[in-house]
């Protein structure tokens, strides 16, 4: 099924995304009609990352989150069940919760006083007898809840579409890689909590600029981030030439671009030649020795757990717009045409001692976010790439997505994945492929099970 965009005459989306030749029309990123179509076709259907159970540990706890453009509330109700509600009163739409986080017995709308229990039921309507004559069916006007919610090893995901496959099915070959990103360092499932608060900031570009290139753009590292080594922000300080990444022990592995061509998810992941995990190399030279000790002990325990397993794969961008890594979650929300709201959340072992949590936290703050020495340079690129692509003539010139085109391959050790050399644009092509499928789909019937082209 092919979508016709009125604003572009009789050209179809398929003509704008030519993955055979690796040419993508810039309208895909800058056209306002396409942006609005994404909100409809992608963000009402996909599974979206909402938060983590550690953000709402007690009954009544709530945390403001977001799905696409829209504000949602992550809530743990009085019976300890988790919910995700659209943050809008069923009466006239006013936000029922304007606090970033907290604990509540009820959400009371400041407009006309409609009150909702933490499980979403409308329980209080002022003037119910006198004005409504008890004719209002309260049971039909509870807070609007997501169609499906999944607590995936502590991480919370939701979708508005009742026909979406289950979240593990949605992840496909990345189900384990994402699971690992919520393990503690020693390999315990659901062993992390998130730091608070969430970093949130605005970025003048389409959400796909960062979302579709992150963890699929090794090409940019050497040029964009060239200035960072002089700052030596890695946990090892000046060692290793001031590299911003921590030290890693050698382990027989090869890193590839890996993605699910059918589902869109993908990252930089490894195929390992040996089972188990690499030995720990002292890394935290800029912190007290207890930090390295903790990491070392955790690694030893993890080595025992995975002694006979090949840990191929890892974290990735989960289509459409959240990148899940072991210590960092990066999310790019569509905010308006040409504006993205970027979020950063950071995992840490629940049971780590304070000295370890502090070391982790300080490293993430100097690395990530708008004041992070690494990420700040990315913002400049995405800002001005979008701006320079918006003109009438600029929009006629396609982007080049040809790196590694035609050199993709599969490996039986990672079924369901398409691989390419570690420096390629294969992941970006996979994401655009899936994006096209979502944009053309009439419903989830067109999206899953995945039909081969």
């Amino acid at each position, binding site marked *: 099924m092919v979508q016709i965009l009125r604003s572009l005459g009789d050209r179809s989306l398929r003509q704008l995304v030519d993955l055979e030749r690796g040419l993508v029309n810039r309208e895909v990123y800058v056209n306002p009609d396409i942006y609005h179509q994404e909100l409809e076709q992608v963000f009402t259907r996909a599974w979206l990352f909402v938060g983590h159970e550690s953000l709402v540990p007690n009954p009544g706890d709530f945390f403001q989150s977001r799905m696409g453009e829209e504000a949602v509330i992550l809530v743990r109700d009085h019976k300890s069940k988790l919910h995700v509600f659209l943050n809008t009163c069923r009466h006239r739409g006013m936000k029922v919760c304007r606090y970033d986080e907290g604990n509540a017995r009820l959400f009371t709308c400041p407009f006309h006083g409609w009150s909702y229990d933490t499980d979403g039921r409308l329980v209080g309507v002022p003037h119910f007898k006198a004005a409504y004559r008890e004719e209002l069916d309260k049971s039909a006007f509870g807070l609007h809840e997501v169609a499906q919610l999944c607590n995936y090893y502590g991480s919370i995901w939701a979708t508005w579409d009742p026909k979406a496959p289950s979240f593990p099915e949605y992840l496909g070959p990345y189900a384990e890689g994402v699971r690992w990103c919520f393990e503690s360092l020693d390999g315990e499932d659901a062993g992390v909590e998130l730091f608070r608060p969430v*970093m949130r900031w605005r970025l003048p570009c389409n959400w796909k600029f960062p979302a579709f290139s992150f963890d699929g753009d090794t090409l940019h590292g050497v040029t964009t981030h060239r*200035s960072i080594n002089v700052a*030596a922000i890695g946990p090892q300080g000046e060692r290793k030439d001031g590299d911003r990444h921590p030290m890693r022990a050698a382990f027989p592995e090869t890193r590839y671009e890996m993605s699910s061509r059918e589902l869109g998810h993908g990252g930089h992941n490894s195929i390992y030649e040996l089972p188990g995990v690499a030995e720990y190399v002292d890394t935290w030279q800029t912190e007290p020795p207890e930090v390295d000790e903790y990491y070392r002990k955790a690694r030893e325990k993890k080595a025992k757990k995975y002694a006979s397993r090949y840990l191929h794969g890892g974290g990735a961008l989960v289509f459409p717009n959240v990148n899940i890594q072991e210590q960092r979650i990066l999310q790019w929300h569509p905010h308006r045409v040409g504006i993205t709201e970027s979020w950063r959340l950071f995992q840490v072992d629940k049971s780590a001692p304070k000295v370890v*949590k502090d070391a982790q936290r*300080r490293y993430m703050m100097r690395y990530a976010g708008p*004041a992070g*020495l690494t990420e*700040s340079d990315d913002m400049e690129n995405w800002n*001005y790439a979008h701006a320079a692509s918006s003109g009438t003539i600029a929009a006629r010139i396609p982007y080049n997505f040809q790196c590694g085109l035609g050199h993709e391959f599969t490996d039986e050790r990672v079924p369901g994945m398409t691989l390419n050399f570690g420096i390629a644009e294969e992941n970006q092509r996979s994401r655009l492929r899936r994006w096209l499928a979502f944009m053309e789909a009439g419903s989830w019937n067109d999206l899953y099970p995945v039909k081969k082209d």
Partner: protein
Amino acid sequence: MSPEAMQRSLERLLLQREIEEFVAMEAELLDERRYNEWIQLMADDIHYYLPIRRNMRFGEQEREQSSADSEISWMDEGKRILVGRVRQIMTGIHWCEEPLSRVRHVISNVQIVAVRGDEVEERDRFIVYRNRLQDEWDLFAGKREQVLRRDSETGWKVAKRTVILDQNVLLAKNITFFF
């Protein structure tokens, strides 16, 4: 006014002027991109802290600012990382500061809160305007809570700077300058 009271008033006035001149001089160094000189004004034990601010219910304002003890802030670092930031800008290839932004610090409402030996606890308020390339601009307002320490070479050094920015979601694509 007794002579003793007059003496104290004058000392207070002179200290106020001295602090204001230091704050103005520091802003000048930043705005003129004299970062190598500016970093000399940061004490070796400086704590530079820029918390994130939350929207909290009335009565829960003590949780409004992210905690330096356990939470995530925009910046929470010491001299080593500040030196790193200056080095990064001075490479000339830190793309978000290349070409360099035009930054203007307007510091006002300088108050001396306390004097303890050679340290002065100070508060001031700022408007920082950043303008970049053709028409990109950001306007930041906030407050700085500082500890300034006398120094034989530079007059004063900054031992602690807490920047209370008047924003929740950061309405800028990055922070690549110093408040």
